């Protein structure tokens, strides 16, 4: 079941072709609820990136010892363990970062994207491939969150990264959770449109 993709392709796959938010439509809850600013997106994206990579590698290493009947509980346990370890280590050794990221790390346990990636990829593939897939998925999530955060922060509070750029607030609606659905929906459509456009052109040339 070895995959044929190179490491670079695995990373690119996570960011573009199988972007967790825009293509797989997983972990929509944080994408809608938390992506009100670019900074929130960066924080949550980074936290997911680390947990995804660590969990993917762990499951890939242990894949021969995991009984198929209890694989889902094992995934959850693995994620919970890594979240706890990262949370405690950050609190102990990087208090400044913890003050910023603490709340983001704690909510990751329930993220669908990580469990799903362990089930679809890490439990079948070798460790190196799982590592790069984890990086790709984490980056894909980060990019997605930052894109949504950019639109919502700009339109909702007229700012980027907390700096006032517009000087006024165009639409408060974009800060509210319901606006998340609209932004995600529109961006999903946009991503799919780009892909469809390029596939068409490729076919036309071929």
């Amino acid at each position, binding site marked *: 079941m070895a995959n044929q993709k190179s490491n670079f392709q695995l990373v690119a796959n996570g960011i573009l072709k199988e972007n967790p938010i825009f293509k797989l439509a997983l972990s929509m809850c944080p994408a809608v*609820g938390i992506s*009100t600013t670019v900074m929130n997106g960066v924080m949550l994206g980074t936290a997911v990136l680390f947990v995804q990579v660590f969990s993917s590698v762990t499951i890939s290493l242990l894949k021969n010892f995991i009984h198929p*009947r209890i694989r889902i509980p094992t995934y959850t346990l693995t994620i919970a363990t890594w979240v706890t370890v990262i949370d405690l280590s950050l609190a102990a050794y990087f208090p400044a970062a913890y003050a910023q990221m603490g709340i*983001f790390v704690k909510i990751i346990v329930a993220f669908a994207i990580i469990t799903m990636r362990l089930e679809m990829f890490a439990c079948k593939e070798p460790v190196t491939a799982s590592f790069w897939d984890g990086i790709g998925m984490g980056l894909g999530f980060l990019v997605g969150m930052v894109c949504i955060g950019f639109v919502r922060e700009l339109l909702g509070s007229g700012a980027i990264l907390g700096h006032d750029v517009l000087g006024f607030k165009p639409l408060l609606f974009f800060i509210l959770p319901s606006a998340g659905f609209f932004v995600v929906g529109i961006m999903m459509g946009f991503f799919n449109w780009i892909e469809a456009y390029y596939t068409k052109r490729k076919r036309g040339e071929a």
Partner: protein
Amino acid sequence: MKMILTIIVRLTVSCLIAGTIMGATFVFTNKAKKANEFAREEKVVYALLGYSKTNPIPESTGMHEIFRYVVSDGVAPSIGYLVPVGTHGHDGGFSFVRIDLDGAYLDSAPVSLSEEKVRNPADRAAAIAAAIGTGKEIRFTDQTIVVTDHGKRTAYLLSGKFPGFKTHIAIILALDPDYSIIGFEVMEHEEDPGLGAEIVQDYFKNQFKYKPFEKIKTLKVVKAPLPGDYFDALEGRIDKAAAIDLMKKNRDQDIYALTGATISSTAVSIGIKGMSKKFAYRLDILDKVLQEQQIAVPF
């Protein structure tokens, strides 16, 4: 049957391994975490009182810690306060003063504790237990710091926890001698980022500043947009004197709820209301008892 057993055994083993890893991490990191928390607490306390590196805390300032315990001796519960005794500048050690639930004085006992050991919960509990004799159980509830300048009270610092939207919110609240709010800082919370987590922002926290005790007693949260000029003042975007002026003008205004996070806003308001009211009630009783019994305290 065999399958069930395999599943049980494997699940148990997985849980045990995960538990061991998490436990080991906790043991390894707890000390550093505690040290960080203590350092942060100290910094927050100084910031709330308006001191910083460029404006250091003056020599004449005293910080006196009061620890509150619930004492049960099998008959009726009572409240015990571990207070420093002696007049200002003359260290007289510590004393454990017991007050019954109606606010009447029961007894007091000197406690032998050093300045350093009083910060350690285990040492403190052991010393109190030795002082009040056997047959009584004590349970720590909270601690307060009374800040004095030249022996006169300038502020009270209370640490407290109350329920938020998801889990608890822990804050440090600074009150002036009239129980008006000097400010507060959120120490720990797990509210949703972008929504309830906005409680740590200046434009929310500073709304509580200068609110008089009379107002706190009836403090409410209103669902109305925060006026633009008030927002700028709260965020410190305008001249400092003008900002303070505007905040004082709004001292009788209810708290403007955070957009999309009314529950978190209400939780903080109710929490602060409860903390201030209870503290004012308890301190009045303690002061009365200390005065009646002529126990000299440095605060």
